[in-house]
């Protein structure tokens, strides 16, 4: 019996059959890895979402996603669906986009809107895709004028501007922020924008097709086109697309159009009150489009009305319905101040 086995083994060796079998086993063992190697992704396109109004939380999420993308991805697609928000948060997101774009391709795709602060965030992108009906632009800053309550008999301060800011100085500051915003847009898209710097600074919004026409955007296309473009720019043939979006967060929207277009699991509309209700704060610079300004005025006026009502309740004085309090958006109770701030 043993001799037969020896004989068979010798035959297998002599005829190389045993080697063929061993080769087959090894080949089959590594075949899955080979399949994976030849057909798997050759890189990653990270998708980062700017969804809803921009505040510190939104910019923190954006920063985290961009940081992760810079570590793990080869290209980034920013899906913008926002009407902007806080100026500081928008500037923060802009800087993150600049940082990322210096390391890898960044392509933006606009859903319902990339207006004001949201446009600021995507301005450094290599390419901006837009829907025909997207709202793009509004390159500017707004803020409520600071209250003029100095001198007063209640609050002491160490300087004349500590409580009530000088109105002219406030406008100069506002202008500085606006010029910075315009400068950033022109820095990254000046070679493509067919508008003059003054026209950009006029802060007009454009529909997507109009934005493509004047150079604020590049092409009409959806997010798939943006992903393909980003992959091409990173020389990826089979990119893995990874959406970097935290679970369980709720997106809030100032613009109804962005609310409707959002794909967020949890979303809600919010009032501009959220960004303006603390009226006694130092200048609160906002980058929001004209669509919410009327809401802001309403919010300011409502606050004034509440203040008057509270005062009435406190003092018990009988006042007529005609009594009014001038809204802070038009400072100074004197008519000549109203005439031309």
């Amino acid at each position, binding site marked *: 019996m043993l001799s037969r086995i020896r004989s068979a083994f010798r035959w297998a060796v002599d005829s190389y059959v045993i080697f063929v079998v061993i080769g087959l086993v090894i080949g089959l063992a590594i075949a899955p890895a080979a399949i994976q190697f030849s057909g798997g992704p050759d890189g990653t396109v990270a998708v980062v979402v700017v969804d809803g109004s921009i505040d510190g939380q939104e910019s923190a999420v954006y920063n985290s996603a961009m940081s992760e993308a810079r570590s793990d991805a080869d290209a980034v697609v920013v899906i913008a669906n926002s009407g902007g928000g806080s100026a500081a948060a928008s500037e923060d997101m802009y*800087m993150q986009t*600049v*940082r990322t774009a*210096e*390391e890898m391709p960044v392509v933006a795709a606009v859903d319902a809107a990339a207006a004001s602060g949201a446009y600021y965030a995507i301005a450094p992108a290599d390419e901006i895709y837009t829907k025909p009906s997207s709202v793009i632009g509004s390159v500017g800053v707004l803020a409520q004028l600071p209250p003029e309550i100095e001198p007063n008999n209640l609050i002491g301060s160490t300087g004349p501007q500590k409580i009530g800011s000088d*109105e*002219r*100085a406030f*406008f*100069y500051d*506002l*202008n*500085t922020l606006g*010029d*910075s915003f315009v*400068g*950033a847009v*022109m*820095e990254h898209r000046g070679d493509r924008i067919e508008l003059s710097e*003054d026209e950009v*600074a*006029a802060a007009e919004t454009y529909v997507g097709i109009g934005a493509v026409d004047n150079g604020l955007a590049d092409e009409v296309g959806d997010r798939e086109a943006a992903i393909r473009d980003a992959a091409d720019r990173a020389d990826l043939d089979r990119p893995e697309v990874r959406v970097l979006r935290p679970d369980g967060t709720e997106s809030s929207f100032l613009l109804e159009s962005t609310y409707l277009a959002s794909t967020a699991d949890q979303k809600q509309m919010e009032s501009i009150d959220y960004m303006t209700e603390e009226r006694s704060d130092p200048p609160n610079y906002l980058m929001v489009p004209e669509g919410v300004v009327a809401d802001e*005025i*309403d919010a*300011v*006026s*409502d*606050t*004034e*009305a509440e203040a*008057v*009502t509270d005062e*009435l309740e406190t003092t018990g004085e009988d*006042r007529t*319905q*005609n*009594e*009014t*309090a*001038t*809204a802070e*958006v*038009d400072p100074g109770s*004197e*008519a*000549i*101040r*109203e*005439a*031309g*701030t």
Partner: protein
Amino acid sequence: MTPDDRDDEIGSTAGSDANDETPADRTAEPTETEATATVGSTDFGTTEKKQDSLKRTVLTGIGIVALVAILVAGLAAAVPVLMAPDPPEEPTYDEFDPDRVVADPLAAEGDISPDGQVGSPAGGTVVIDESNANRFERGDITPMVEAFEAAGYEVEFHQSGPMSESLSDADALVVIDPAARYDGADLEATEEFTDRGGRLLVLAEPDRFLIEAGLLGATIEEAESGLTEFSSRYGIHFDTRYVYDQQQNDGNYRHVVANPEGNAEISPTGPMTDVEDVALYTPTEVRASGDAEPVLTTSSSARMIDSDEQRSYTLAVQKDNVLAVGDSRFIADDRHSVGDNNVFLEHVIEFLISGDVSPASDDGGGLPDDVIVGGDDGDDDSDE
């Protein structure tokens, strides 16, 4: 190790100790250990060599282990550092260069010091209309009132009643952004006044929105100047849209900085060569027919809202006895000294007090005893 080896070791240790003993110690009674060492002295040299060799081997081995471990750890630490790509350079933000984006504000300093010599030495009266819902507060125009008084002219506010009565003894009339239209009688009285040589200053505003909050909620009111018919009587027209300038301004596109037009001259003291930057706040364009002279114009980068036209706009004109400015804000206490506003206002006040006013007719309420008859008379008086 065999039991004999162990004995050898013990013996060698004992022997070694014995070698260290002093001669005095050696005279003492030998111990059992010493005796044993004496017995094993045959293998002592070989054993010691083996032991030293073993020691060296162990020490060398420990050293090698430590060296290898350090090398491996060092390589392990160095490889990631060496393999890691250089960190990307920090972005630079030229777009935020302060030299580019931070503007130097116009200085706000100086008073309104008109040359009182151009008016009557006896002084006179300037009437400021308050009867047509004019949008100003007296406190806001204090600098201008003070300047009139410094030039020897008293200021009267016309609050109600026929305009003709107030103008009967006046040298100049100032109309600031009336919300109400002038009635026929006031229009006639004003026209009669300027026909007599009285000087008129009209300060207008574009249409704008006044936002107010009341007990019943917010209200947004569109405010218009009621000057259409008033100014048209003089062939002067104010646009209802505001002019803005994104390049030449006082910190905001609506705060337009205008300049004197050429050798514009509205005061007897001469052309406004001492005026350069006049800051007007949300101004409107002023147009005039006939032989009107432009006084203030914008830079060519200005625009008008709801218009695509970018050009120089006229914001102040003089036509005969009338000076029209498309802004009322620039005279306010917190704006009158911005740029050269105060110097321009000196020219404006000198224009107003240097008129040659004829006595009012009987229809105008008669000639009061204290009516001032023109600035030229004053000049003559001063020459005497």
